[in-house]
């Protein structure tokens, strides 16, 4: 039997808007993935949990407007441990369309703004992970 896709979800920083990330967590588990909601995580703690739990995907949400700063910090924390490429990295939250490209340039693989159907996130995870394992 195939191993379930494992996803770590967390909130970086202080932004307490939790509706989005819990909604996504439920949608991903309904789609057959295993999700771990880590709440607020300091970034070192997040990397540690991601490695320990051997997840395939890391997702986080920012609703405070500090999405660019936190995206940079998350990528840096992963790079510092040399494990950036071990994970598919996703961000969700409230940010303008014009920031999607900068977020991707920072190194986020999947960028999901307000109004995204959760099915789009599920599809993205499946297709990206499939193409990655193909490359391996």
């Amino acid at each position, binding site marked *: 039997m195939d191993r379930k896709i494992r996803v770590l*979800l967390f909130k*970086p*920083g*202080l*932004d*307490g*808007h*939790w*509706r989005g*990330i*819990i*909604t996504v*967590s*439920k*949608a991903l588990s309904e789609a057959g993935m295993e*999700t771990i*909601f880590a*709440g*607020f995580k300091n*970034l070192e703690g997040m990397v540690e949990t991601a490695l320990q739990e051997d997840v395939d995907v890391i997702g986080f949400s920012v*609703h*405070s*407007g*500090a999405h660019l*700063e*936190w995206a940079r*910090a998350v990528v840096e924390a992963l790079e510092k441990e040399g494990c950036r490429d071990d994970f598919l990295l996703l961000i969700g939250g*409230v*940010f*303008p*369309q*014009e*920031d999607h490209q900068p977020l991707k340039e920072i190194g986020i693989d999947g960028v999901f*703004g*307000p*109004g995204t*159907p*959760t*099915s789009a996130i599920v599809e993205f995870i499946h297709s990206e992970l499939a193409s990655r394992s193909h490359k391996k």
Partner: protein
Amino acid sequence: MRENYQKLEEEYSRWKGESQQWPERDGIFRTDSGIPINQLYTPLDVKDLDYLEDIGFPGFPPYTRGIYPNMYRGKFWTIRMFSGFGTPEETNQRWRLLYEEGETGFSAAADNLTTLALDPDMFPGIEAEVGKEGVPIYSIRGMEALVEGLPIDRISVALVVTPMAGPAITTTYFNVARKRGIAKETLIGTTQGDLLTTCCAIIPWGAVDPQHMLKLACDLIEYCIPMKEAPRWNPVNFTTYNYREGGIDAVQEIAMGLANAVAHIDELLSRGWKIDDFVHRLAFHLSAHRDFFEEIAKYRAARKLWYRLLRERYRPENPRAYQFRFHVQTAGSSLTAQQPMLNIIRTAYQALEAVLGGCQSLHTNSYDEAICLPSEEAVTLAVRTQEILQEETGVANVIDPLAGSYYVEALTKELEERIWDYFLKIEEAGGVAEALSSGWLFGQMAEAFHKRRRDQESGAEKVVGVNCYVKEEEEPPPAFRINPRAAEIELERLEKLRRERDNARVRSLLDELRRVCEQNQNVLPVVSQLTAAGATLGEITDVYREIWGLWDLPIVA
């Protein structure tokens, strides 16, 4: 109106028989909270209502029609826009603009750090949050800059924070006013400091447990009202708006608000105060959501239920205590990033609900708020939306114009019953502090998140521009950007403050606060001295964390 109910019933059956011959369009004929909606309402639906008992006159029990005898014929509701970003100076400029555009009350949207009562240099990375979601107010210096030159002796200010920050932020404001020669005894305004918002709506970082947050909220109420330090201040605002944003319905919204108020009332009674010492200053902040008539009925039912709750349980003597005073904010969660101009229309309908429901003050959202904080252009449009209601539509010329509508009256009654049932359910779960600690309330919120998603993704809940009438290619509006130097400016402000203040005095006052926390006394008197002496938000609230510990939230995804 004279009614012959027997004849009416016969005619109703005749109409029903005829109507059933006609096909009905596809649709879900239920209110947002799930109350089945008949095709038609008639006197038969309200025949058990007693006008004086259930509806009555505005300004008189049970206050269904409004809390003042003259409502908007006396004065319009207050236009109060929730606003803040960047630095206190920039927010001050925005407040001046809003004031010039006709705003009649201020409301401070604070950044994450201020809301949670942290300093931006407490640990690395968090300076990213400075000024992002609201105005940074970490000390008396920030507050001074925020209200500089504004007529705070005449215009009320709402300080929107958590119970963690409430005592410090409120006394900071009082101390700024005093420096400007305005006594706190005369100040008008509100501290939101809502326990359930802090827990259910926005999960808090670095908060103490719910019981201690309740203590802090009640310390502030006690200080302002029974201790008479700021008797005209609203020391708490039960912000059901924020819980509603999570996806719960109108019934849960009001029930949670009432249960939250009960927790505060019971805590203050247990301290030995009498109900009449404080209850008249408790106020609420409600949502105006999608379901037009249900929201209007909700406001009417909420007023009646507050009256009923106080009369049945607490029996205050002051008639003002029974008046359910509330601010309304149109529903941010109903706004869409897709086709954002549609948000102007949504907001206008929701503002009309609030006005037909008899709110005391109103915030209208800006159309760009599903994307960023509002631009000047967008916020001016939002203010104009209220001004059109006031000056052009005539809706404020008569009190409670929907009273007597068979539908609205039947819905008001139905909501009243359902809200009361859910309120009792929260009590069964142990009341709000226990229901937070046990995770029960988080479970209720999470259930709502999932239900809304399923309904929106299945199309059961239509959202124009998102799951119907979708436009493929869109030109997004320009995003409002926060000053990128905000963090630098605020860190400098803090550093300068710490250099210039009397640090020995701050240290000895912090020790005094430790003693007060350990002995479970009211923190306000010493916190007021601390904020005057230039202690920062984070320094003060770290004492709470140190003495009471951090709360480990019972959240399960």
